[in-house]
Each structure stands twice: as structure tokens, then as C-alpha cells.
């Protein structure tokens, strides 16, 4: 004999209640990156290999600094969103949860480190 009612057994099962939110946010970051990628990648490739003074001068400019920060924040958000989907597709159970948490915390940390570094360059240059 079951002590739970049918209703009680199914409550909380099924939909994760987030609907299409993840899908939508991932497209949104993708659209932002369509604009930001060329704006970041080409100047970065141009400056790579330059001296310390060159880099400080380049990213000391507000426009370059803003683009670089916008790119880093969006790219790490999009990276996490993508990694989460890939993990969910190929890994299951406890490992899946551990990997998703690790990916999220790591991406957040690097997004913060990148943002802070560019701000410091921009404000001291």
C-alpha cells in the first residue's frame, strides 16, 4: 500500500521550470559575440607580441578596454553556457553535477580576473 497520494508523488517532478531560458540566454550571448568577436580578436592579434608599454597603451584606451571587458564577460558566459550543454549531453549523474559546478565557478573566476586586470591597466595607464 502506498502512503503517498498520487498528487504528492508527482509534485516537483517533470519540468525544471526554467523553460527556454537557457536556450534564449545562450543565443543572446552568441548575438553579442557576433559583434564583439571581430572588435576584440583583430586588435588583440595585432597587439600580441608587443612590448609591455604597447599593451598598456593599447588597453589604456577606454574604447579598447570597454570592448575587451565586454568580450571577456560575454565570452566566459557563453563558454559556460556551451560547456554546460556539452556536459549535460555526455556526462550523467554525480560527475555531471560536479563538472557543471566546476565549469561555472572557473568561468566566473576567469571572467573576474580578466575584467579586473583590464580595469587596472586602463586606470593606471
Amino acid at each position, binding site marked *: 500500500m502506498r502512503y503517498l497520494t498520487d498528487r504528492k508523488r508527482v509534485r516537483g517532478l517533470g519540468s525544471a521550470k526554467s523553460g527556454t531560458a537557457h536556450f534564449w540566454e545562450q*543565443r543572446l550571448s*552568441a*548575438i553579442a*559575440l*557576433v559583434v564583439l*568577436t571581430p572588435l576584440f*580578436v*583583430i586588435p*588583440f*592579434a*595585432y597587439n*600580441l*607580441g608587443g612590448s*609591455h608599454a604597447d*599593451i*598598456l597603451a593599447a*588597453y589604456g584606451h577606454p574604447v579598447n578596454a570597454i570592448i*575587451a571587458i565586454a568580450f*571577456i564577460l560575454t*565570452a*566566459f558566459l557563453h*563558454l559556460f553556457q*556551451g*560547456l554546460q550543454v*556539452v556536459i549535460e549531453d555526455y556526462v550523467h549523474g554525480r560527475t555531471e553535477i560536479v563538472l557543471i559546478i566546476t565549469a561555472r565557478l572557473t568561468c566566473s573566476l*576567469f571572467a573576474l*580576473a*580578466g575584467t*579586473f*586586470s*583590464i580595469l*587596472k*591597466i586602463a586606470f593606471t595607464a
Partner: protein
Amino acid sequence: MADVNRGNRPLSPHVSIYRMPLNAVLSITHRITGVGMSLASVLIVWYFLAAATSEAYFDTASWVLTSFLGDLIMLGSLMAIWYHFCSGIRHLVWDTGSGLGQRRVQRSGITALIAAAVLTLITIILA
């Protein structure tokens, strides 16, 4: 239905000899390039962190990123980002419900490959 006895009949697609269609290869390449760029993302943040720390630390990071291995990673990531960029635009178009016909998928796939190669070359020329 996986436990139903199907005798010893061959399964389709026979993965060991199955020739992946172009679009299947492009699809998995999109994922591989996306995950692969994690490495370059970390290196680039490290590069900025070093630049914000000191000139000596920057020189170390700059040396690593422009060493033979660094060049290889940066060139690979450059190709990866432009491929992922072009392939991503295809996915965004598909998300609107258009461009999904067999011939258009084939054509946009080839276009994405060419565009990625052109963008990579343009970046190398400008840099």
C-alpha cells in the same frame, strides 16, 4: 526497446565504416572548437593579468604566448574562433527556422568553411 532480441542483424549506421555527412562533421567541429577555446581563454586572461601585475611577469606571459607552442595554440584558436563564429551564425539563422533545407544546409556549410578561412587569413595579414 534496446533489450528486444533482434537476432544478429547489422545495425545502421554502421559507425566503423559510416561516412559522416559534411554537416555532421561541421556540427561536431563546432562543439570541439567551442570547448577547445577554453585553453586560449585562460591563456589570454593570464596574459592580461600578467600585464596588470608587472613588466617582468608580462614578459614571461608574452614569451609563453609567442613561443612555438604558444603560436601553435594561438593560431589554432584563431582558426577555431572564426570557424565557431561562422558556424554559430548558421546556427542563429537555423534558430529562426530558415535555411534548413538539405541544399541550403550543404551550401551554408561550405560557405562557413570558406568564410572562416578568409577571416583567419585577414586577421593574420592585419596582425
